[in-house]
């Protein structure tokens, strides 16, 4: 491991990336080292199998979905830029950001964090979580532990509670509304210690 400056120079377009994502140079270096550590065969990009090697992710019930969030649109390879852009969703919210309507929202805004979570449910990206999609997530999280009837009753009840316009699906706004009391910044942020 060399000094920060030398590693930074190895990352292409690092300035634009830092501006887009808001990561500090030190964090960029750490993420780059992590990217390289995950890329065991030194291909220069990651594929889904590289994520499979992470033990804690393999035991996570929605581990596959999380990996899927990185490989959008059926791609098979993930470069460092895309890797960092997804992880940027989990940066803590910048408390003193000026509300400028001309500047696009940063990746780690509360709204974008919610969108990320929404997309874990909404796999076909049609903007709504259908009953079938909800059942899929529940199945992944509970698998052998519950019966099909129990799963369906959970899905029905959840949709009933959140579905305000009675279209048997949960849109992004309904999703956001049902979670307005949750401290998104605390629960969907990862803080670096060094």
């Amino acid at each position, binding site marked *: 491991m060399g000094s920060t400056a030398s590693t930074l120079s190895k990352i292409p377009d690092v300035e634009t990336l830092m501006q887009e994502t808001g990561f500090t140079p030190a964090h960029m270096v750490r993420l780059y080292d992590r990217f390289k550590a995950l890329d065991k065969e030194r291909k220069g990009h990651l594929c889904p199998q590289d994520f499979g090697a992470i033990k804690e992710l393999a035991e996570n019930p929605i581990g596959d979905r999380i990996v899927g969030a990185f490989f959008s649109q059926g791609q098979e390879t993930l470069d460092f830029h895309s890797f960092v852009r997804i992880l940027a969703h989990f940066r803590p919210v910048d408390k003193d950001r000026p509300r400028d309507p001309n500047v696009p929202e940063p990746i780690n805004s509360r709204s974008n964090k919610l969108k990320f979570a929404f997309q874990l449910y909404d796999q076909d990206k049609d903007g709504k979580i259908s009953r079938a999609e909800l059942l899929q997530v529940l199945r992944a999280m509970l698998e052998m532990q519950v019966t099909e009837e129990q799963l369906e009753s*959970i899905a029905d009840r959840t949709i009933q509670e959140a579905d305000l316009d009675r279209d048997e699906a949960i849109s992004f706004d309904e999703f956001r509304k049902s979670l307005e009391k949750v401290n998104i910044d605390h629960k969907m942020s990862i803080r670096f210690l060094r």
Partner: protein
Amino acid sequence: MDELWGVVFSAIKAWFTLVVLLIMFPAMLGVSLGITETYMKILVKTLKWATVRIEKGSEERKTLKVSSSNGLIQRLDGSMEEQIWELRGSRPKPPVGGDFTLSDVFYFSRKGIESIVEDEVTQRFTSEELASWNLLTRTNYNFHYISLRLTVLWGVGVIVRYCVLLPLRVTLASIGLSWLVIGTTAVGFLPNWRIKEWLSELVHLMCYRICARGLSATIHYHNRENRPKKGGICVANHTSPIDVVILANDGCYAMVGQVHGGLMGVVQRAMVRSCPHIWFERAEMKDRHLVTQRLRDHANDKTKLPILIFPEGTCINNTSVMMFKKGSFEIGGTIYPVAIKYDPQFGDAFWNSAKYNMVSYLLRMMTSWAIVCNVWYLPPMTQHEGESAIQFANRVKSAIAHQGGLVDLSWDGGLKRAKVKDVLKEQQQKKYSNMVVGEDSSD
């Protein structure tokens, strides 16, 4: 031209005599001339000064508190149940349809992303980071250019380490190894009298002492009354191949391992001539019963030296102890646990076998400042009635972790190469399902 060669030759002769007299003979006799102590004192003073300079130079960055753990990111406290409860807020539990909310997914996605950035297993296979720089480039993570004086000191350090210490250490190491081979072969020719044992121990000890000097190793042994006795099994946490040298400096052990080719093979064959070590062919290692049987036979013979085993099976970075494989604990006999903790300030002893091969690793070792470590001998343990081998192994592991100040983990070190079983995923699902549908879930 000839004069130049003459000068070079006499310089080399003088160098050798100096080395032999000042370092080798005292090492062989187990006596210390105090050279290493003075070196360490100077080193400690210099590093302290360097630390003060670095701290002065980085006052703006005091806000980023340096954590004593090896962690990169902050993990939230609380089990799965506690964290999901927090997410749900004070929502009343619905009467029917299970206790599930859309926010539950936050917990899992956060955990997933955390593990993508840093996972608990891989963390243990990278070198421990220091709170303050110790003037070695290899440990320089966050420290920028501070002052001219510091850079000059670093430069002097490089010269000292590569031009003075390295040749010295390489000389000592080669002398040590050749002496091991020659000595053990010579002893092997003697018939099996009592004196053969004594001589063999002497030869082994001398060679390991020379090798230890060859690494500038300063070892502090604690509780030496608990040293492993004959017919027992010595068990220790594994950080690097040097562990063997560290332990063998204070007693004689029977080594266990695979037969290698090349230089290692020569050393192994020589060692086995003077006293019985246990070397396995690669094919034999697969047969667990054969392995256990051979080890058991050795351990049952009370005149044979204690067996040295590293039950983790792989090198860990000395901040934690990983799962002990139960094979060593099924042999029976008395277990003598030993905890080894290296001081990372003077040199990082961890062998990252994915990153460095043996030769580059040894080179790194020989260009560090020194190897400083503490060895604690723990009281002997035996398997209790009705205790399974796994429980016994965990008991020994906790004792070692506790003594050495290491984190006690139950992950299998072999996971750094293998895949996780589905069983672990099922456990997570079971825990979550208890929260959602309660105890009356189907099996």
